[in-house]
Structures are given as C-alpha cells and as structure tokens.
C-alpha cells in the first residue's frame, strides 16, 4: 500500500552536514548529509549496520558526532540542547520500559521529565491513551503487557508532550501483521501535523508510511527522494503498468514491440508491469498490439519500480529479478 504524499514544507527543518561517527575501529557514519522537511515522514532505510540508529541517536541529542554538524532551523543542534529535546519525541529501537512501572506510571513519569503536571498532564495522558489504544491498560505494569501494547506505550511516551519532531527507530519490529498495520496507520496519521523520521529495514513499511526515503549503506546516504523520484532515477528502463484480458490467456509480452521484460502483478494474470524502451509512442504502440491480438485493455499507465528493486539496485548495484 502506498500513500499519497502529504503536505510537507520544502524548507528543511533539520539539515545534516557531513556526519561522521566511529565506534573504535568500526565506522558507523561517514560524510552523511541530508535534509528533513517540516511535516514530512522520512524513512531511513538500510540494512543492519547501515548507521540508521546512530543517525537517530545523533539527531535526538543522545550522542554527539565525531565530525560534521546538524542544524535545526538553521541553528546548530549542539547549541539548542534542552530546548530541542523539549520539542522532540523518541521511540528507541528496543522500546525500553521499566518492568515494575504501570502504563499510567510511565506516562506520568515521562510527563514529569517534560514539565507536565496537574491538569495539563492529565489532559496529555488521556489524549495519548486514547490515540494509542491503551484505554483499560492504565493500571497494568509493563511486565504484563504484550509486545504490541508495549510498543504502543513507547509511542504514547514519545507523543505525550506533543513534540513537533518524532523519531521512531524500528517501531514495528517483532509485531504481528495486524499490529503492524495498526501502528503504521497511527504513524501515517502524524504526517503533516508532525515531522517524523522513521528508521526501518522493512521495505513495505517505507512504502506504506513514508513520504520520502533516505537509503543508507555503510554509513553513507546512497539514495534520497520520494518513491516516484527514486523509481525514475534508479529504476532503469521506463515501465508501463497495464490491465488487459485475453480470451486465450496472457500473451508473451516480450514479443510486443519495445517490451524488454514483463512481470505479473498479483495472481489474477491480468495485471502486468512491463519494462519498455524509451520510445514516447510505446503506450500507443502497445495498445494497438493488444487490440490486434483480441485483448481487452482496461488500464494502461506509467509504472514505477518497486522499492525492493530500488533498494537492491542501490545497495548491491543490481536490480531485483
């Protein structure tokens, strides 16, 4: 499932310049640079060890980079310190919770860290309890929560103080498909209202949730853009996506003029993604070819390379089969 782009401002709220970070001999980040626009959901995508968590830890102020700098609204991150931390929410990778503390205890404690008390805290707590589906669990200790409930509590903690910036590190890791869908819908709802940076190595998560993707590999940014932009720049040959029905089954698409490759979309056998040569007349030529063979054409539009294809192409320098 791919979402339409949201209303993101084109001016970067965070600008990252030439970040470098080492852990002893291991290079975590090298010359990493990118921008995050206000109101967008940016996906940090990369294999394990690509530097996603280190990037988030630097952006949240948990650790300082060895080299390079981060600017928030044009001001150095290091100079903002506590003021910036007041405006950010963070769900770390392991979603650390205190086993003996209840859901309410966690939220009250988080509130106290952000200066929320009394009626403001109650209001904020009720808001996130409702939004994150924690109603009825307020008195339950973290040790008695399921994985999905724990994850929702982690997200509620990150949202409690109404942050402008939300950093989520692998928020759906280890959840069952139903909970993944729930949590993704929740995160998708933040778009426009908050700037979200989401780290993941799950391609479908990026496709389902993010406006823009930054692909990291070995501490470097290897690709950046919306899925459409990446598809155009990295997907290789132009693509056409079509739906056509033939009485005697699908034809050999590679026999059609200008078609290089064909891949079925779905199991019905009527939807296809075709890699074609750059001829601007290709759609018209193909439509005529289908008609000549007695096929019925229901849909024909420019296709897009899948994220998996793009990802493999930039990480390994080869497209998916």
């Amino acid at each position, binding site marked *: 499932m791919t979402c339409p782009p949201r209303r993101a401002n084109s001016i970067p709220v965070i600008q990252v310049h030439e970040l470098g970070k080492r852990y002893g001999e291991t290079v975590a980040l090298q010359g990493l640079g990118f921008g995050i626009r206000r109101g967008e959901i940016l996906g940090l995508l990369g294999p394990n060890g690509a530097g996603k968590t280190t990037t988030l830890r630097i952006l949240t102020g948990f650790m300082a980079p060895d080299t390079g700098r981060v600017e928030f609204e044009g001001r150095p991150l290091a100079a903002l310190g506590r003021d910036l931390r007041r405006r950010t929410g963070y769900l770390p990778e*392991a979603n650390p*919770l205190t086993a003996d503390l209840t859901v309410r*205890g966690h939220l009250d404690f988080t509130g*106290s*860290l952000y*200066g929320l008390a009394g009626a403001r805290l109650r209001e904020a707590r009720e808001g996130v309890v409702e939004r994150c589906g924690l109603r009825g669990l307020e008195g339950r200790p973290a040790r008695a929560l399921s994985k999905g409930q724990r994850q929702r509590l982690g997200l509620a903690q990150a949202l409690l103080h109404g942050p402008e910036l939300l950093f989520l590190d692998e928020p759906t890791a280890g959840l069952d498909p139903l909970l993944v869908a729930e949590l993704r819908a929740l995160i998708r709802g933040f778009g426009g209202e908050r700037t979200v940076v989401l780290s993941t190595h799950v391609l479908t998560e990026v496709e389902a949730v993010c406006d823009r993707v930054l692909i990291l590999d070995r501490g470097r940014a290897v690709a950046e853009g919306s899925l459409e932009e990446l598809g155009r720049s990295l997907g290789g040959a132009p693509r056409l996506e079509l739906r056509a029905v033939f009485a005697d089954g699908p034809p050999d698409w590679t026999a059609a003029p200008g078609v290089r490759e064909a891949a079925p979309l779905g199991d019905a056998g009527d939807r296809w993604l075709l890699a074609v040569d750059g001829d601007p007349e290709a759609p018209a030529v193909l439509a005529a070819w289908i008609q000549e063979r007695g096929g019925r054409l229901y849909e024909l539009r420019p296709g897009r390379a899948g994220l998996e294809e793009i990802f493999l192409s930039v990480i390994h320098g080869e497209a998916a089969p």
Partner: protein
Amino acid sequence: MRGWAGILRRELTVSFRSPLAGALGGAFVLLAGAVAWLDLQEYMRASVQLAARLRMMGLPPQFLDLNDTLLAQNLGGLAFLCLIFLPLLGMGLLADERRGGTLELLMTSPLGEWPLVLGKWCGALLLYAFLLALTLPAQLLLAPHGDLALPVVATAYLGLLLMGAAFLALTLALGAFTRSPVIAAAGGFALMFLLWALDGFARPGATGFPHGLLTSLSALGHLAPFLRGLVDTADLIYFAVLSVLGLDLARRGLASLRAGG
C-alpha cells in the same frame, strides 16, 4: 534542577514494587536481626561466665556494660552489613538504565545530568534509610535489659546514614561508566572495602605522609566516632565530600556518554 522529583518518585515506586529490592531489603533486615540475636547470646554467655567467676572469687556479682559490649558489638556488625549491602543497593542505579536502554530515553528528554543523578541517589538513600530504620527495633529491644545509651544509637545511625550516602554516590558513579550492574557492584565492593580498611595500612598512631593520610582517608576511622556517640565536624565533612565527589563523577560519566557515545 527540574525533573529530579520525578526520577525520585519513579525510583521509590520501582524499589517498593520490585521483587529484587524486596528480597534484598528482606535479607538485610533478617541478617541484621540475626547478628543482633547472636550478639545478645554472646553477651548473655559472657555475663553468666563473669558472674560465675566473681562468685568463685567471693566477689559481688557485676554485669557487663550493655553499651560498651553488646551495643558496640551490634552497631559494628550492622556497619559491616551495610558495607556489604550498599554496593548491591547502588549497583543498578545507572548501570541498569544503561543496560535496559532507558537511559537513552532519559538523556533525550530535557532532563539534565544533575537532576538525573540527584533523583537516583536520593531514591536509593531513602530506601537505605528505610531499611536501616527497620533494624532500629533490634537495638531498642535492649533497653529493658540495661541503661541503653540512646544518644549513641542516634549518632551511630546518623553515621551509618552518612556512610551510606557517600558509598551510594560512589557506586552510582561506577554505574555511569559501565552497563553491567555486576561490574558496578564488584567495583563498589572493592572501593568501599579499600576505603573502609585504609587505616589498616597505616602504622598505628603514626602521623604525616603516608600514615596520617591513610588514617584520615579511612571510612572506618570516620565512622567509629559516630558509633561511640561522637559527632565531629571533620567526619561530617569527610562523608559530605565523598558524596559530592561520587555524584559529580556520576554526572561527568553521563556527560561523557553524551559527548562520546
């Protein structure tokens, strides 16, 4: 300094709900009671032996001084027990937060290093004070058996509290540099035993370097007057300085974590 009260509240809530803290506290109080009971048995045996010896010598019966023998023995035993339990109470304060990842959440919140360190330390100190208070009845039960020196009990408990404050601060500091509570506890034990027994390395009665220095740095040397009913400014300052040193080291440990990762 905003936020330290929240840390303190969480610390106390977790301490009083955690089975580990409960087991640790229970063991402490039980052992303190056992030590007091054994001391009492020893005192009674010695008193009976003294009375028998005096009777054989045709002298009137006399009792051993309750405060010089039983109370002093009890308080000494309790101090040693505290020395063993303090690293266990302090080992997880920061090391557990680091290991469990909750430190990442704390340090990405607007909370500064000082409030975090102070909240943690106060929480552990209050738990220690609570456990110490639970051992008080064992001392007060002696009152019907003689003229118990209540001021000595009071100063001894003040001394134990101050020693606890200092040693908890030092264990907290060790926890800021490791994610392993076991290493923090082992380091705490080593450091505390060293501080405790420093004057053992000095020649008795000697002054100047290094003997005088070793004696003046010994924790036992500064605790002993409290156990005898004396409150000296130098001893108060010693434990206060150790506490501040430990807390500042812990703060620096956290700050270096932020700077270096």
